[in-house]
Structure formats: C-alpha cells, structure tokens
C-alpha cells in the first residue's frame, strides 16, 4: 500500500509525461500486481476459504438442526435437512431459560464492565502516554506484566472474599473482578501515544484549560475510536466468560440467570433431552451473532489494529 502511494497513478503519468510513459507505467503496475499485496489469488485460495467457512458454519447449523428434530429421531443421519420441531423447542427453551431476564442480566453485566474498563483505561492510558511523572516506566512494566497472570490464580481468594461479604450469588460478584483490565490500560496507552499529538495538549493548556479539562476536551475525543473497540472487546469477553460467573453465581443460577450459564443449567436439568439443550444453545448464542453482523467489521479492524500496534 505504501509503495502505491509514492508512485503516481497511471492517469497522472499520462497527463504529466504523455501516453507512452502511461503505457509503460501500466505495464510496470501489471508486473507489481503479480507479487505480494497486488497478486490475484487463484481458485485454490478461494476453495480453501470456502472450506474453512463451511466448517466454521457447520457447528452452528448443526445446533439449529438438532434443535429442530424430535427427540426420537435424533439418532438418525439427517444430512443437512431440518426437522419440524424447531419453534416448539425454541419456545420451550425460551421459557425454561427465563430468556429475557437472562438477557437483561447479561447485557447489564457486560455493559457495566465495558464502560468501567473504558473509563479507567482511558484515564490511565492518557496519563501513561502523554504525561510525564516519576515512576511512569516501572508502573507501565508492572501493568504489562500483570497481563500474563492467569485468572484462575485469583479465583480462590476472590471467592472467599465474596462469600465473606455475602456477595456470592449476586451480579455484583460477577461484575467486580471485571471492572478493570491491565490489557485495557495497555491498549489505550498504545493508541493515545500515536494518535494524540502533544501540540493539541499544549494548545489547550495555553488556552487556560486545567489538566482535567484538557483530558476531557482533547484526550477523550482523540481516544474515541480505540475506546469503542475496547468497549466492544470487553463486552464480548465478559459475555462469553464462563469460569468466574460459574463460581460466583454457583447454585443461584436459577434466581440470577445469565445467558452463559443458562444453557449449562438446562443441561443439568434436562440432560436427556439434547434437542432442548441445543435449542437453548442456539438462543443464548443468538445475541452475539446479531452483534457480529452489526459490528463484525469493527471487530476485524480492532483485532488487526491491536496486532500492529501492540
């Protein structure tokens, strides 16, 4: 991409240097096309991608397929055909899961965590990226180091503390450990370092802004793209998180339903009826699949941006 920018376009070459030069430029461009970024892939590439897409889609389709069959005919080989019981099973699972409450709770927990992670990370990330203070280096190393700590390490004492505060079985216990992440701080620091010029901060200061006003009027607008991606990823991570909610909610899963735990409770109660369980899995997966179709482009962009900058 960068090389294309430095070379004038074929049309521009025609204007500047005449048709002969333009033909030569087009020929040269054609040769570059054969390599790297520009090469057009053959059918084999597409075949591999279609194959990968199909094996990614199949388990999702299979879920719907099993959910649509009658319990008795589950054992038969069905190819790709659907049974006729899909909506019955979905309706039953919908009721058994207490779907609306589970959805509400899950959205609540995931949004709270996403908001809080973004707020804490933007504030700390701005400070790390753009302000000078003693101990900045070691503190940043500390933040990066803690990203490698397994979540399992903290589960036992967190559980003990939560039960001492009699918070086990509440949504508060699920939310609390997700309020900040070291990754969030790292992410915002990386982004703001590159995206926020010192000149802007200084201009605001010259105009008489206090430090905190500078933060809100200069840093926050600049941080917005990275903040929304961080929110999206935190939201999904919290939504799909199973281990800690599983420990924290425990036996209260009926009273405090969460979508991630809900299908699990279905399988504990009805583990004979796999058609119903699969209907539950389909239902609980649906909200994130919808989110994927709405925000999939941002997800792709976010993962790729993180890889380059990190």
């Amino acid at each position, binding site marked *: 991409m960068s090389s294309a920018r430095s070379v004038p376009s074929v049309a521009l070459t025609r204007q500047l240097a005449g048709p002969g030069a333009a033909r030569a430029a087009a020929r040269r461009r054609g040769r*570059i096309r054969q390599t790297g970024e520009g090469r057009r892939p053959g059918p084999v590439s597409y075949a*591999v991608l279609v194959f990968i897409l199909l094996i990614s889609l199949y388990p999702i389709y299979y879920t719907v397929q099993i959910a649509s069959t009658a319990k008795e005919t589950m054992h038969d080989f069905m190819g790709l055909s659907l049974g006729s019981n899909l909506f019955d099973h979905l309706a039953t699972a919908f009721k058994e899961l207490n779907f609306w409450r589970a959805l509400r709770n899950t959205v609540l927990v995931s949004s709270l965590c996403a908001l809080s992670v973004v707020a804490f990370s933007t504030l700390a990330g701005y*400070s790390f990226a753009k302000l000078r203070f003693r101990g900045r280096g070691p503190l940043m190393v500390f933040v990066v180091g803690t990203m490698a700590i397994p979540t399992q390490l903290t589960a036992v004492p967190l559980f003990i503390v939560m039960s001492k505060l009699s918070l086990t079985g509440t949504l508060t216990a699920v939310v609390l450990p997700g309020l900040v992440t070291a990754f969030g701080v790292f992410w915002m620091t990386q982004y703001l370092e590159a995206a926020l010029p010192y000149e802007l901060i200084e201009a605001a200061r010259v105009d008489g802004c206090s430090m905190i006003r500078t933060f809100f009027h200069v840093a926050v607008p600049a941080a917005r793209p990275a903040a929304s991606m961080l929110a999206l990823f935190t939201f999904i991570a919290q939504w799909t998180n*199973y281990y800690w909610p599983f420990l924290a909610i425990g036996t209260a899963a009926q009273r405090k339903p969460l979508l991630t735990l809900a299908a699990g409770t279905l*399988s504990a109660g009805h583990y004979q009826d796999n058609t119903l369980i699969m209907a539950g899995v389909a239902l609980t*997966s649906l909200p*994130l699949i919808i989110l994927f179709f709405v925000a999939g482009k941002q997800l792709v962009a976010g993962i790729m941006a993180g890889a380059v900058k990190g």
Partner: protein
Amino acid sequence: MVTHATAREDHPAVQKAPFRARLSRIDVKASPYLYISPFFIVFAVIGLFPIIYTAYISTRKWNSIAGDLGVAAAYGQSGETSWYGNFAWVLANHDFRDALFNTFSIFILSSVPQIIAAIVLASILSANLRARTFWRMGVLLPYVIAPMAAGIIFRQMFADETGVVNIVLQQIGISPISWHGNTLASHIAIACIINFRWTGYNTLVLLAAMQAIPNEVIEAAVVDGAGRARQLLSVVLPMIRPTLMFVIITSTIAGLQVFDEPQLFSISQSFGGSDNQFLTVTQFLWKTGFTSTSDSNMSRAAAVAWILFIIVVVFAILSYVLTSRIASTGGPDKPKRGRKGASR
C-alpha cells in the same frame, strides 16, 4: 510544562495570580498520579490482593465453610503441620498428574495445528482477494460463539452414539470412536473446540502483521525466484516473528488454563470424564476447591493455582525461547524485534 507560564501572562494584573499559578503547578504535578490511581486502586483490590492472598491461603488449612484452621497439615504425616503441606498433597495427587498430562496434551493438540492453520489462512487472506471483508468476517464468526456454547455443541457432535461425527464415520465404514471414553480421542475433540473458536482470531492477528511487510521485500524475493512456499517460510515468517511469538505466548497462557471446553464437553456429572480422560488442571482446581468437602479444600485449590501459575510462566518463557530459535533459523532478522513481541 511551558504552559502555565503562558497562562499567567494572560492575566498579569489579577491579584490571585500567584495562588492560581501555584494551583496550576500542583495540578500539573498531581494530575498524572490522579489519573492512574483509579485503575491501580481497583486493580489492587481485585487483582493484586487476591494473588498475594492466594499465596497465604495455600500455606494454611482453609475450608470454604469454616475458614482458616491454622497452618497446613503436612502431607503423609498425621498431626504434623508444614507450610508446604498443600503443595505436597497436590503434587502427589494422581488426579492432578492426570490433569497435568491432559492439559499438556490438549494444549499441544490445539495450539500447533491452530497456529499452522492461522499462518496458511493469513497468507491466503493477505493476497488481493475479491470481497476481502467478507472472508475476514467469515473466519472470525466462531469467535462470538461462547466457549460454553461451543463445548455443548461439540459434545453433541462427538457424542458416542448420537453424534454426527460417529454417524458419518459409520456411513463410510469406519467403526465409531469413543470420543468421550478414549483419552486421545477426547483430547482431539476438545482441541477441535478450541481451534474452532480461536483459529480465525489468530489468523487476523497474523494477517495484520503480514500486511505491514513492505511490498518491496516480497518483490525482491519474487525477483530472486522464490515460489510462494519459499516466500512464506523465508521472508514472511521471519518478518512477522514478533507477532507470531505474541500469538504463541498468548495461546500458551490461555491453553494451559483451559476450563470451559472440557467442562461442558463432559457428559452428565462426570466432569473431566469418568476416568479423568480429559480432566484439566483448572478443572482439578475447581473440583478440589469447590466440590470437595475436605477441611483444607480452599487451601489446596490455592496451591493448585500457584503451581499452575508457575507452570504457565515457565512455559511462556520456554515458548518464547523456542520460537525465537525456530524463527531465527528461517532467515535474516534483527534480534531486537523479538523483545518487543514478548513484552505484550
């Protein structure tokens, strides 16, 4: 900063100026700490304190109901106490050894094919495809399926009698495989769950790194007569080494902690398999701490947590060293770049 000096010049006549200047100086000095402190305070409570507390608990005899019952019991000697009693108990436990073996086996079976597949897919996606956003989103779709849901789906697909995998195997004349009973088979099935969810994600991470390679470098390789495989091995892989190491290290850290997939893969209540075929270390931690009624259940779980932590750190370092070896034999590269990748 220069800024508050200028601010003072704007209001020279006002009497409050010295006070405001002092305030502004305090503002400049204190603000950085004020902005990072919310994060560090919350993190200290929910991250740092639990880690230190885990270390303390692991040396005690700690029950989930009764709480702290004194120093840990020494392993194998009744009546004696010793601070490492819980660690000795864990290390001598047969279930733990099974779990350790299973965790490594599942980790290898999931991460190696996954990273190879991600490299191949990323190199396909980095070409000038039609509808590239569509393909990129396509490989990422499984990422939004929760591990819990994927665990249940694959449990059904690999069900011994009713699952589609065995049904298809029988259709083509192969005898059905006991995906839940056989140790290796269950590891392969669980690795499939992990690969299903993470291959696409890692593909995009590697793809981003591949696109950052300057076109001229690839062109030079083409001019020198390198085929596509040679380009990938000798040019692309060495150049994306930092990112490759990042992918390998993160999948090491996550792979050794695997819990959701084997937990949901289990049929009925025999978590980890009837004979520990696919019990992982984190499942063992959960069983020890949250389902056992022993009088030191919590402290033993804490000991498992610390042992797991040490294993994760050792393996993260090991895979760092290994990949820097492997990748550096592939072609010319600068050793400086590796360190950047590891610090993430």
